């Protein structure tokens, strides 16, 4: 019994460490207007304190991303699984390196995708890891198109 009581007492002591109500509320979905982002450009917005890269990819970038032999990748994922259908030109990824959390720089590195200056991870134009210590592709946040030129992240 005493052990059960002690274990129950630990729950609030640990649970208080998780995000509090206001932090969760501030993490509600945001809407982003895409009209100002020209082809070849990208913007960075913050959602839940994380930078989100929204890139308007060029034809060439899209082709580069699609023509890769998927099975040769460290974290195999086709480009089509990382963008919304019919919206190939928009890549939306969380700009946090999957190695140890630095912010990769857009339009850098050997694949002209993202390059993380911290320990040298290189991502391609689809945000997939190509070389370096990071184990995974840049995460795609949950998002949807509200209209042709507006997305809702979260």
């Amino acid at each position, binding site marked *: 019994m005493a052990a059960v009581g002690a274990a129950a007492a630990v729950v609030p002591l*640990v649970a208080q*460490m*998780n*995000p*509090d109500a206001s*932090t969760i509320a501030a*993490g509600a979905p945001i809407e982003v207007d895409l009209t100002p982002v020209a082809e070849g450009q990208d913007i*960075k917005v*913050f959602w*839940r*304190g*994380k*930078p989100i890269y929204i890139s308007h990819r060029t034809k060439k970038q899209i082709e580069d991303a699609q023509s890769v032999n998927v099975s040769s990748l460290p974290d195999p994922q086709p480009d089509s699984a990382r963008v919304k259908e019919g919206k190939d030109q928009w890549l939306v990824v969380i700009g946090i390196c999957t*190695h*140890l*959390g*630095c*912010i990769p720089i857009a339009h850098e590195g050997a694949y002209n995708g993202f390059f993380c*200056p*911290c*320990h*040298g991870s290189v991502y391609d134009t689809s945000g997939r890891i190509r070389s370096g*210590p*990071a*184990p995974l592709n840049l995460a795609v946040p949950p998002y949807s198109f509200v209209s042709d030129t507006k997305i809702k992240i979260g």
Partner: protein
Amino acid sequence: MSGPSTFQPTNPAIKWIERRLPIFGLVHASFVAYPTPRNLNYFWTFGGILSMMLGVQIVTGVILAMHYTPHVDMAFNSVESIVRDVNYGWLLRYLHSNGASMFFIAVYIHMFRGLYYGSYKEPREVLWILGVIIYLLMMATGFMGYVLPWGQMSFWGATVITNLFSAIPYVGDSIVTLLWGGYSVGNPTLNRFFSLHYLLPFVIAGVVVLHVWALHVAGQNNPAGVEPKTDKDTVPFTPYATIKDSFAMVCFMIFFAWFVFYVPNYLGDPDNYIQANPGVTPAHIVPEWYYLPFYAILRSIPSKLGGVIAMFGAIVVLAFLPWLDSARTRSSRYRPLAKQFFWIFVAVCIVLGWLGGKPAEGIYVIAGRVLTACYFAYFLIVLPLLSRIERPKALPNSIADDVLGKGGTSRAMASSLLALVLAGGLIVAGGVHSARAADEHGGATPPSLKWSFAGPFGKFDRAQLQRGYKVYKEVCSTCHSMNLLHYRNLADAGGPGFTPAQALAVASDTTVKDGPNDAGEMFDRPGRLADPFPKPFPNENAGRAANGGAYPPDLSLMAKARNYDRGFPQFIFDFFTQFQEKGPNYIDALLQGYVDPPPADFKLPEGAYYNKYYPDHAIKMPKPISDDQVAYDDGTPTKVENYAKDVATFLMWTAEPHLEARKRMGLQVMIFLVILASLLYFTKKRVWSAVH
């Protein structure tokens, strides 16, 4: 804590207490009558030095906490206001920040000593493991403390280190969210780190009590590694060890004071003088120097989880040392092979530390892998193997024999160890320095100028500060803010030497929006001494919009936030010559480094200007100043050269307003400590003359 007390108080009050709580007897038995081996060398004084450093850190830390605000918007500025406005705040802050490094220097010497002389062996296993626990707690405390000033390195160090836990399979991400209290490092993280940073030193103090207790049960090891057998082998703790420890502590304090008063930022990272910005990662993230060897191990393993396991494994393996090395002979003095491998291991650790400060690319990664393998091989292969195959030399019969036999060789070894540790520390520091410079690729090295404020007796030139202020006000301040400065500072001692009336006149030339008044309206009033320097832009985005997307950085701390590589071996000399003027050199060079048109082979991006000294050369700031732009009334030629030097001097003062007070006090402290050390040295000689 060893056997029944021989303490016989005569004072009735003490007797009365002693019958109810035998605390005096305990202290007497532990620190007065306690027998210590008579052949201990100076490496055995680091235990005392460590206790002293723990005390220093707790006292300065508790005081700093009285002035510090753990909030993401205020933490950085609250640290700066401690340094600028709190009486002796600069001293307390530098004591605390450099104290952490001193603590680690001492603990590394203490640990290597234990390793060399086999102090972890039977019956001292628990003593050693308690030590490893203290070391782990120190690492955690140091890491969380480094986050509190909320500079760029604080923030990104915290991000990288907390993300280590995301490598844990399945639950990793939830653990990281739990640690952060949010979806990224933020205010909840800072708050809990502050709370724990305050708590852990007291936990350390508790474990230290256990450590000392275990020490007093097992007795101290000694350089010969044979247990004391007769009374001739030992001397009472007081006066012998007390006086020797005191002398060593004062010597250590001299070393400490050198950092605090003359090179307080030598071991720090310039990026930490830039406020944390979650949107920009510094080009090269380097942890504090004392974590570098482990950081190198982390990075040399190509898999994320593997790297994390290796890094923690590198520390945990220490706890198993008593069983990995089962050789009967304790001291490496009598183990010819173990001795050689020990020195190789020391070198491996130092080079790993150096690699940890290097960018993770090319040859550095390969070297890191090789040395990581060596690190683990030492514990897992070399030591177990040696304990089976090595034939130790003959041990002395007793400690007394050892003392009479030979003091010379052990002393030579002692000084070589010290020299090596020092050299190692400097190499690691150099690694950090050059690593930081790696991000400045492409920028030429600024020439080293002569500054009136350099060196141990440096002082600002008042007229130069006033001219620098004029340049700042008429030129720089149109785009750059100076958030940490107030008009009152112009009249501060050690500053540009305005009279309060002059400073007030400068202040009242400006209009400040104040309010609301009784009617609830905002109104304009003339500036006062307490007002901060005005901001050129209402907010960062306005600044960006007006400057082609690049925000002109705040200049308050600029002279401490910029860096460049001085190269090997220059950085070693820099420690002795107290070179601290990278920032002003860089600012001066930058202001004069514009080249128009740019070199033919350089492709200048649109809206940028070519500057020789700017990293990657393309700077968004147009050439800010040209000859004769600002009128000087003291006859100094109105050339860019002078403008640059004057404004660089002014920025050094804004970054380090108490520089003169610091150097002045440094001299007094140094003189005092040197006298104290020599008195203690001669007392120690007298006391010990009977036993030598």
